[in-house]
């Protein structure tokens, strides 16, 4: 690992000021530190968000929830507030990696990194969440831009994610047996605004299965999407599974999620 300067600001304004040049933010470090070890990134300085109290915590807001960027996966998984308002989100957080990853990894770090096999992107897109940064609010549909890319600009800091409350929601994941990342994860949410189905792990980034959403709008049942095929073209193919296998898994996981919703 190359060396760098380390800063631990206690305010958001101070953190933003430190983010010039080759500086990088560190949240839970669960992705960034292994990346530094492999020398895949060589920041001149690290700005640790761990000392900024306002970035932590889960608040009920407007019937839904606002979760601070530095809230850990374990905190979301165990939160009584999350279990009451959006239980599917607690299930999603509990399924991330392992207990030690959940004790450090954060929602802000996960979505900013936007790993194509990460779990949170599916939750944010299906629930129609809004990403709040120190500069603006970004709808989840516009935030995730494909593999490891987001709408974040240089020096922009995610401060929180705001989730509306769904009527029903469920997340079903087929974990890679070695890494626990999603081979395929499908988040289904039924809200006042309609039905949304978001898929992670299968493609280069999270996407909505719009044909499934249409079929479910007419008949919210697992049978309604049984024959809805996801095209394999463009999906991930690797040593863990072919694109065809993943396309099939999307349908299986989606049906399980719909069943879990009803």
């Amino acid at each position, binding site marked *: 690992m190359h060396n760098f300067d*380390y800063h631990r600001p206690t305010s958001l304004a101070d953190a933003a000021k430190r983010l010039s040049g080759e500086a990088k933010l560190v949240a839970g*470090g*669960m992705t960034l530190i*292994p990346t530094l070890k492999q020398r895949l990134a060589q920041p001149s300085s*690290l700005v640790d968000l761990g000392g900024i109290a306002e970035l932590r915590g889960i608040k009920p807001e407007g019937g839904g929830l606002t979760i601070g960027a530095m809230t850990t996966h374990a905190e979301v998984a165990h939160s009584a507030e999350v279990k009451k308002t959006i239980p599917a989100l607690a299930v999603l957080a509990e399924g991330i*990696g392992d207990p*030690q*990853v959940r*004790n450090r990894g954060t929602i802000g770090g996960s979505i900013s990194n936007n790993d194509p096999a990460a779990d949170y992107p599916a939750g944010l897109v299906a629930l129609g969440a809004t990403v709040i940064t120190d500069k603006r609010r970004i709808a989840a549909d516009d935030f995730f831009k494909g593999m490891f890319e987001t709408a974040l600009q240089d020096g922009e800091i995610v401060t929180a994610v705001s989730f509306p409350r769904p009527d029903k929601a469920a997340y079903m994941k087929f974990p890679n047996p070695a890494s626990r990342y999603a081979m395929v994860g499908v988040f289904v949410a039924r809200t006042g605004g309609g039905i949304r189905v978001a898929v992670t792990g299968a493609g280069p980034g999270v996407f909505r299965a719009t044909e499934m959403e249409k079929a479910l709008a007419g008949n919210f049942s697992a049978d309604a999407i049984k024959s809805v095929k996801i095209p394999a073209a463009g999906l991930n193919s690797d040593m863990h599974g072919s694109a065809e296998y993943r396309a099939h898994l999307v349908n299986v996981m989606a049906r399980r999620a719909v069943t879990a919703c009803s």
Partner: protein
Amino acid sequence: MPTASMTVNGKAVSGEVESRTLLVQFIRDKLGLTGTHVGCDTSQCGACVVHVNGKSVKSCTLLAVQAEGAKVTTIEGLANGGDLHPMQAAFRENHGLQCGFCTPGMVMSALDLVQQIPDPNEQQVREWLEGNICRCTGYQNIVKAIQAGAKAMRS
């Protein structure tokens, strides 16, 4: 050079580090506490698990400077003089180790489980061990040891 100051196994410690020094390097190389192991460079094996402010974390994926002011417990902090901690004793009695490389991480991870679920069932133990890899035992006796250790801690 930055310094890192923290409490390790109840003792205040402090030392010069580089920003890039990992907590596990500080513990092993600066403090000479070599019970905490490093088994991978991908944050997957759990040989390095210690407690930071009461929670189990991978000390290979945390910078020493990030643990500034924290309370850290390593495997060396468990025994009371010559008396093993009940979880350590349970690993010995149940043959929960072969080479022992993964054991400190297993024990530290198990203790975090027991503080959340004092009486974990087999499934809960197996799920909890997702982040601890053992290349020797096949896990069977590790699971047994953790359930026995949890029981001993309850009594």
